[in-house]
């Protein structure tokens, strides 16, 4: 059974079709990269999966259960964690409290005390290397630190499926390599599926993903093992604008 299955999902905003009849499957423990040019519907797809928006058509099945119209706050305890494209820290709270909040309301919700959560937070803060900033207010962090904090916060939720929305954009290549290595390690240790949405950073995709999905204009263009997908002519066209016969691909 797939961990997550999307069946013919369509999400419209007025006349704009952001996600168009898209189906996909994610197995437990997979590392998947989703790529596609700006405006191709990647973030909308994440929003549909995490319940920020409900799709107009299609179904979202998680662990065999239909969660298409389940409010987002009920999905986190089931094991759906995510980070945001533009980090959304709880600004006035400390880094430690931010990460602890993840632990408190994720899959461990109701099973752990506040103190336990703070201890869990310490562990993940150390993993992402923010221990020096632990007691700082989250809004005083640099953008990259905020991204790392969000990853720690999402991991502290102990998710089964982690959606990372361009978590590595804006990072130094060295940091990207470090983050990729560390995500791979976490994935093995805790058995979570990680879906990273990466836009332009092929370095991260190649290093991290086992399978890549290319999305273009809300549709799935290619879904194949990483190397194969990135060498696909259609993908090259979409990214570099030589859309054969279509002439409307946007870089």
């Amino acid at each position: 059974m797939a961990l997550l299955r999307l069946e013919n999902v369509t999400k419209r905003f007025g006349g704009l079709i952001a996600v168009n009849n898209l189906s996909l499957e994610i197995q437990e423990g997979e590392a998947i990269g989703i790529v596609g040019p700006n405006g191709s519907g990647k973030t909308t797809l994440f929003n549909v999966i995490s319940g920020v928006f409900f799709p107009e058509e299609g179904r979202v099945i998680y662990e065999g259960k239909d969660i298409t119209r389940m409010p987002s706050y009920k999905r986190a305890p089931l094991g759906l964690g995510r980070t945001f494209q533009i980090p959304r820290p709880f600004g006035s709270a400390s880094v430690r409290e931010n990460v602890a909040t993840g632990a408190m309301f994720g899959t461990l919700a109701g099973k752990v005390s506040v103190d336990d959560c703070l201890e869990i937070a310490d562990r993940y803060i150390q993993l992402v290397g923010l221990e020096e900033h632990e007691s700082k207010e989250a809004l005083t962090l640099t953008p990259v630190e905020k991204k790392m904090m969000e990853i720690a916060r999402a991991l502290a939720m102990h998710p089964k499926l982690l959606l990372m929305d361009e978590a590595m954009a804006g990072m130094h290549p060295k940091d990207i390599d470090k983050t990729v290595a560390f995500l791979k390690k976490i994935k093995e240790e805790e058995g979570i599926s990680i879906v990273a949405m990466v836009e332009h950073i092929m370095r991260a995709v190649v290093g991290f993903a086992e399978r890549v999905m290319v999305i273009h204009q809300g549709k799935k263009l290619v879904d194949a093992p990483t190397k194969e997908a990135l060498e696909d002519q259609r993908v090259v066209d979409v990214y570099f604008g030589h859309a054969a016969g279509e002439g409307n691909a946007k870089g």
Partner: protein
Amino acid sequence: MKKNIVKYYPLIPVLAVYLIMFLIGFFMPGMWQMVALLAFYCALGQSWNIFMGMTGYVDFGYVTFIALGTYGMSLGITYFSQFEWLGMGIIVIGLILAMFLAALAALLEAAIALRLRGAYFAIACIGINEGLRYFIEGAKIWGGSEGLIFFGALTQSLGRETVNQLTTFWADFSVFVIAALAAFLNMHYMRSKIGYALTAVREDEDAAKVMGVNTTKYKTLAFLTSGLLGAAVGAMAWGLKLGHVYPGDVFVIHYTIECIVVVLLGGAGTLLGPVVGGLIYGLSKYWLAIIMPGFQLLIFAPIIIIIIVAFPEGVIGVLKQRVKRTALEKYIV
């Protein structure tokens, strides 16, 4: 275990201030009325702050709860004082009615207004408050615009001596108790899961939802707590103490503004803030009314503006930053 007690240390300065206030009022002749007024502002500030300070939602209709609390007490005494065997029980009934009305209003208001944010939420709360007032007046329920006058009924059922003690001492004393209770609840919320959830709501409600926080539940809980405490203050400090209630006297937005000023002066979202704010506000209002009667508001407004400009985070908000990494840190929250 010790760690758990340390978490509650910030209650010490709050309770110490209340105790000192009480002792001054109790032992120094002529001070009781002033101390009672200060306790009233502290209690309201503390209660209002539980919702506003923790969620960032500014409830401009807060006086609704104080008013409904007053009505609860008034209705209890008006309709139950005929049963003489109830004795002091009518005050308990009044308090229960106050809680019931406030809870009903809080849940309804939460269902309607808490779906809105920012200015829309504020306006909706004002609307509900005005609506309730004109509903009571227009539909002529609970005495309509003539209100309820029950001082006589109270005296008849409990005796002059008892009523005298109730209105001049116990009504005010109970405000201290409510203030302390509000401080305790606020502290407890801050230190528990509730506090983390509400901080997340305040900082980024949509992100909080995706993180698994049932935002509606936690907002409603804080709103309800805040409303019930406000209603208790109204029941005691207005209902029981004054012996009458008129809709035009209690559903007045002026009192909400006073709550806001108290909290902003002291520091929104802090525990000690509303106490300090209540003291500053209450004392200056009291003294200015004595030294220049009639002009107090003229002087008062600039003073408040200056304080707010100098301490945008409130007195305690600033102090909190100052005592960071000192021995005082664990006492000031």
